């Protein structure tokens, strides 16, 4: 057993994180709020150059053949800078769904074509799921993977209707997406479709969990900085235990949310349809951490914290939105309850990772 990341994984994270920190700043995020398309094409091109789009695609299909555990730290890094574009969702949710469809011998000629276009950095694919009322950045997607009942459809942009919705988080560009479930777009139905949707839900929840972990990290860093700079009563406010403890409480939650999220990434990589428990645990822990981080970090910033000008709102509002996307705390806690209270639930220490646990597909 080895619950750590390899040096290669850590190095890759560092490279991506430093690129993100220089390209995605509070100022460039605010600039997106008033821009027509609301996305940074140059940044997306750079992310593609670095290989993000092909990371989780098997080598046989022309990708790098890496696993969710290879990407999870990068997803976290995207959250840490509050990246608005749905890069994590694209790499971790929509592309793997296309791969699943091909793997299972489902779909039509479009699927291969779309994967090739994604690998070439020429197409963006968005995923719809009944648990989310809206799709983020749907206006910049070329293709949509949409669900209707158990069925899954691959629909081109010109065959869907988008209706813009506004989010509390000004960085998010939400749309409800409607389409005519025509058989020419059908890629899977029945049990196969349901299974694809289940895996997609788990990947989506994991993608948000990782970003929530990163968002929490980002908020703590800003708050540590602010509480070190801001003085009252002749000393930095961070010198007061009352202020320290606000951030220490978040740090504890954060460190405990990380291994849970990494474990979920492992499980999703091995068996996305059997990862309910691990993913729900991760989403629940990460959401709780990020909501606490939002609350405490605004508090640490005092009156500045609830102004529009203060950048914490960018992170806090994202956390509030992502905490609900791909299942809110209630949904995921209920999945944990169901799993725990099953007949013959395998709960002993011997089942933490090994045989008989959900990670064991043999």
């Amino acid at each position: 057993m080895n619950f750590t990341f390899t040096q290669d994984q850590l190095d890759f994270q560092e490279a991506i994180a430093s690129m993100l920190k220089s390209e995605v700043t509070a100022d460039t995020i605010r600039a997106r709020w008033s821009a027509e398309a609301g996305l940074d094409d140059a940044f997306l091109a750079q992310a593609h150059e670095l290989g993000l789009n092909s990371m989780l695609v098997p080598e046989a299909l022309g990708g790098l053949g890496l696993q969710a555990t290879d990407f999870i730290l990068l997803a976290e890094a995207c959250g840490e800078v509050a990246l608005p574009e749905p890069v994590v969702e694209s790499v971790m949710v929509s592309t793997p769904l296309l791969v699943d469809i091909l793997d299972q011998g489902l779909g039509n000629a479009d699927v291969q074509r779309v994967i090739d276009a994604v690998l070439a950095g020429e197409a963006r694919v968005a995923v719809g799921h009944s648990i989310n009322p809206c799709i983020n950045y749907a206006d910049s997607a070329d293709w949509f993977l949409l669900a209707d009942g158990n069925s899954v459809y691959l629909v081109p942009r010109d065959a869907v209707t988008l209706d813009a919705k506004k989010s509390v988080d000004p960085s998010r560009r939400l749309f409800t997406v409607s389409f005519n479930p025509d058989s020419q777009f059908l890629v899977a139905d029945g049990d196969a479709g349901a299974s694809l949707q289940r895996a997609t839900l788990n990947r989506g929840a994991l993608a948000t969990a990782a970003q929530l972990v990163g968002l929490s990290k980002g908020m703590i860093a800003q708050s540590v900085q602010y509480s070190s700079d801001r003085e009252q009563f002749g000393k930095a406010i961070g010198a007061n235990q009352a202020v320290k403890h606000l951030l220490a409480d978040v740090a504890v939650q954060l460190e405990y949310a990380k291994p849970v999220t990494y474990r979920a990434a492992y499980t999703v990589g091995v068996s996305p349809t059997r990862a309910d428990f691990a993913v729900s645990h991760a989403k629940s822990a990460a959401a709780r951490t990020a909501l606490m981080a939002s609350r405490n970090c605004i508090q640490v910033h005092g009156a500045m914290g609830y102004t529009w000008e203060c950048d914490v709102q960018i992170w806090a509002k994202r956390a509030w939105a992502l905490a609900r996307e791909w299942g809110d705390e209630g949904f995921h806690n209920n999945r944990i309850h169901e799993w725990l209270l099953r007949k013959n639930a395998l709960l002993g220490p011997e089942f933490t990772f090994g045989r008989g646990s959900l990670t064991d597909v043999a």
Partner: protein
Amino acid sequence: MKLSFTAADEQFREEVADWLNDNLQGEFAKVRYRGGPGDEHHFVDERKAWERKLAEGRWTCIGWPEEWGGRAASIEQQVIFHEEYARAGGPGRMGHIGDTLTGPTLLAFGSEAQKAKYLPPIRNGEAFWSQGYSEPGAGSDLAAIRTRAVFDEATGQWQITGQKVWTSLAHESDYVFVLARIDRESKRHHGLGFFLVALDQPGVTIRPITQLTGTAEFNEVYFDDAVCSADDIVGAPGDGWKVAMGLLGFERGVSTLGQQMLFQTELDEIVRIAKGNGASRDPDIRQRIAEAHIGLRTMRYNSMRMLSGGEDGSLSREAMIYKLYWSSWHRNLGKLAMDVLGPEAELVEEGPYELNKLQSLFLFTRADTIYGGTNQIQRNLIAERALGMPKEPRGSAK
């Protein structure tokens, strides 16, 4: 202990309720339930007109002595007024600061000339006030204020220079009371003055601050040789801190009962939505609704207890815990509201940034635990003043 109101009080309640019901009609129907926290930027002109309407009915400044147009209302009657006002959906009071802060301060510390000049317009709903305490460098640490007031012998006026911040509704007000440093060499709470300053003058610049709700209730107020007359200092030069702290003591929490009625309205709305969208079937949500209800009841009982106490205006232990308690309760209510709404919690109306009532509640409750003394400062006050624990050391810098 007597947990009921007298027959005379109940009759007063009926009088208040009838008057409000008769008058929150016609042109004032639209201000019902508007202008509260997070909504203070709406219907400003209508709410100012409403203050004049209240004044006609003798419902402004009811705690003031009759000599100055008040009713000399008892604590019980003031509680009843606030409860009925909130129940009727009376709009957020534009005259709140004049009524509850400026007025009582002048009555206690002001000269006869100041009372004659400033009290009638407040009482008649014609002059609106704001509060100039906090500064960029003086938030939790109020005694660190740097705004300066200099007496100009030539003109016989005070000249004020500096910056105040988080000044609620300054952009809709006529006056601000300003705590400023008279003696350049003075430290902390010594050498301060308490000034009454007109906002409509060349030396005053007001800039609204946008909150994370996208709305702007409070402001930065810049004073650049702003003036007020020699008669516009309350108390003696150097007594500013005493006056300012006395002012805070007048907020005995009478309006807290009205605030709790607003909380009740919010909780009722949340329960209504939960029943409608099925969230009320979720055991976790049910539990939290019950906790919210219990918390609000507890708050109400404690306020009653607090108001039943001595008349000297000093803060008792039960008053010290109030801010911490309600702000934490209200913050949790905001979170509950979002969880009851589910995925819809994220969606806002089309338009610039139009939050619905519950979203506004959620975001605005983030400020509740900060303004008027953060929860951390409140805990220090409870520990140091109520429990008598050793004081946290101050820094030596500056």
